């Protein structure tokens, strides 16, 4: 496989994951905003912008946090280079680049998804359509993943694609957790308050983990339980531990296919050992923030090593 093709597959799935994650964040924000009064709603919209990492770009353009400004900014505003429509366009551009390394089913899933999203967002999205647009984004993602699972040869290409998904997912979950813990609550005295509980619920929803968590924890929302669930529970496909162990398997498979030892696998092995030795007590003792920052750094070091090991660029 060409290094450029591996790069295209990796980024195609990173962008896809990014588009989906941002859509989930938006969806959770909308839900929260609807259940609050006007002032609090502005806070919720602010937290959506902060969690998506677009605070500076947003505030450069708008003075206040108004729902329709926020969702249109996140969905389609050209002043936001990471808007979902352009992110999805990146997915499609990469899919075109690697057109002959992916199946027709996968290409058509991406292309149809893109056509749908473009039609959805030709004009600013009204509140009444927001739910449909978010659903379309999620459906486009699911169709692409489904097409991949069922039609892609399990060779290097599959593992590069999967690695892109997992690297992006781990990064995104760690950032959402970090922002939640340090930025969203007005002050420490709010810990345990109803606002706090609502925020945590929101975090769970934004990673589609609310149902699974309620099932495992009999409906009790508590910060420690949620952190343990999102960081260490390997059963949940959007936990850091899951991303780690799945990524480890993909990198091991790549190493087998390429028959040589590479840096990315070595970094992965070390990171994995650290994760396996960690308990929830360790996480809070060390400080969640520090833990997450370490995770984000190690995750991006692995991504950089993958790119280097497999000659993504000249």
């Amino acid at each position, binding site marked *: 496989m060409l290094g450029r093709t591996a790069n295209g597959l990796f980024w195609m799935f990173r962008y896809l994951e990014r588009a989906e994650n941002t859509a989930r964040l938006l969806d959770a924000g909308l839900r929260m905003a609807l259940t609050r009064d006007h002032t609090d709603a502005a806070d919720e919209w602010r937290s959506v912008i902060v969690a998506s990492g677009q605070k500076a770009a947003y505030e450069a353009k708008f003075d206040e946090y108004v729902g329709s400004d926020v969702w249109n900014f996140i969905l389609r505003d050209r002043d936001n280079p990471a808007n979902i429509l352009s992110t999805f366009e990146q997915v499609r551009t990469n899919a075109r680049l690697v*057109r002959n390394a992916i199946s027709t089913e996968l290409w058509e899933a991406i292309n149809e998804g893109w056509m749908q999203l473009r039609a959805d967002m030709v004009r600013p999205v009204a509140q009444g359509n927001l739910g449909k647009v978010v659903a379309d984004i999620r459906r486009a993602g699911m169709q692409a993943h489904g097409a991949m699972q069922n039609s892609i040869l399990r060779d290097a290409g599959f593992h590069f694609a999967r690695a892109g998904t997992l690297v992006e997912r781990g990064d995104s979950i760690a950032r959402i957790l970090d922002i939640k813990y340090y930025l969203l609550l007005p002050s420490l005295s709010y810990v345990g308050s109803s606002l706090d509980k609502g925020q945590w619920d929101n975090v769970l929803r934004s990673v589609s983990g609310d149902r699974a968590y309620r099932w495992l924890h009999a409906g009790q929302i508590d910060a420690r339980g949620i952190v343990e669930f999102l960081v260490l529970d390997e059963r949940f496909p959007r936990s850091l531990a899951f991303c780690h162990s799945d990524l480890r398997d993909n990198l091991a498979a790549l190493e087998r296919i390429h028959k040589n030892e590479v840096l990315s696998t070595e970094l992965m092995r070390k990171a994995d050992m650290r994760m396996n030795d960690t308990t929830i007590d360790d996480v809070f003792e060390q400080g969640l923030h520090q833990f997450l920052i370490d995770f984000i750094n190690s995750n991006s070091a692995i991504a950089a090593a993958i790119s280097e090991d497999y000659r993504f660029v000249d």
Partner: protein
Amino acid sequence: MSEDHAKFDEMYEPDGSVRSAYAGYSDWFTAQDANWLKRKHRDAETSFRKTGITFNVYGEDEAEERLIPFDMVPRVIAAAEWRKLTRGIEQRVSALNAFMHDLYHRQEIIRAGRVPERLFRHNNAWLQQMVGFTPPGGVYTHIVGIDLVRTGPNDWYVLEDNARTPSGVSYMLENRETMMGMFPELFSQVGVETVSNYPRRLAKSLAACAPEATRGKPNVAVLTPGIYNSAYFEHAFLADQMGAELVEGSDLRVVDGRVQMRTTKGYEPVDVIYRRVDDDYLDPLTFDPNSVLGIPGIMDVYRSGGVTIANAPGTGVCDDKAVYSFMPEIVEFYTGEKPLLPNVQTWRCADDDSLAYVLDNLEELVVKEVHGSGGYGMLIGPTSSKKEIAKFRKKLTANPTNYIAQPTLSLSTTPIFTRKGLTPRHVDLRPFVLVSPDGIDITPGGLTRVALKEGSLVVNSSQGGGTKDTWVLKD
């Protein structure tokens, strides 16, 4: 020529009865429900959009991907007719290859006084670097598209030779797929020769041209300028169908005297490059130094037998319309036979007598630039205004060698489907021809381009033309 024939429709006789080649299709068509057909007509576009068969149009505000309109009425060619065409095409293509070899070696045809020296001296596509060099297997034009037009029951003419990089073959393939998807029962009623094995034939033909340096099974790659090229879809499609790598210049470099591609495992040699990049951009060390699409040093590797480039650099010489005008002489010189497929009568404006005639008859003629393509820069006398003709006259007198002129042919028509039913439109035909040391291989079918505007003779997709599935009937 055009004066001798009234409009020739390929489906219907002048009295309205159906010609035998279209009998099977017509039986099927008349048995279909009109509303159902209209629905199918709409479905076709949706299906093309989803598949992503689009082309980019240069000069549009946004890099918009457009569809080439597809018409669902097939263009049908009888088996006997096709056999005649293939003999003519084979003869012409083998003459083209012999001509290329001669032009870049001893130039016997010029010494014999059969064609003038200016054919290569005044030819943009001529490459000094190819002089004295013979490409692997002696093949210059691995893939050729011969554009044919028809004016009567037995009157086919060659309108153009595309020896550089003929495009459009993906439409030949996808149009057939679309037809089979939309009307499967039609293909069980009418026996149609398959075209879908073209990519396999292409892969085989290219592999047969592998260079000496090849070790083991030849590694074939398609070289594309990238996703912003108007034909990117076709490049990706062909690579996919051949099971070959789709590479860009940045994937390739010269390592140890071979052209190698950067894979996730390291650099691996490529033996045959089916390039869809123009000569000028192929090698910044030899040609345009600013090119980022090419591979520095590839020409040295090529000349030392380390790689096959298909089509060979410098084959664009044959796309020149001044060369075209000499094709009857060229065919005769190398094959010793009269051409089986005639040229359209052509006046070379480089000759004073011809120029005088052309200037006197501009409103009757089609005038083309010798290096032009895609329907740009040409004058169609009968459909042009006085002002346009006057403007063109100035350009022509300023630089007559740059032009040739031809009579305005009354191209044959075949019906297209519209909401009001079948209605005739002008068509041409581009069969795709593969050349290797094993021989000349012509896939039974081709790309039929159709002018969608009533009365229009311009079939180019860049000028609003569409395409049709082309059927060669089984015996």
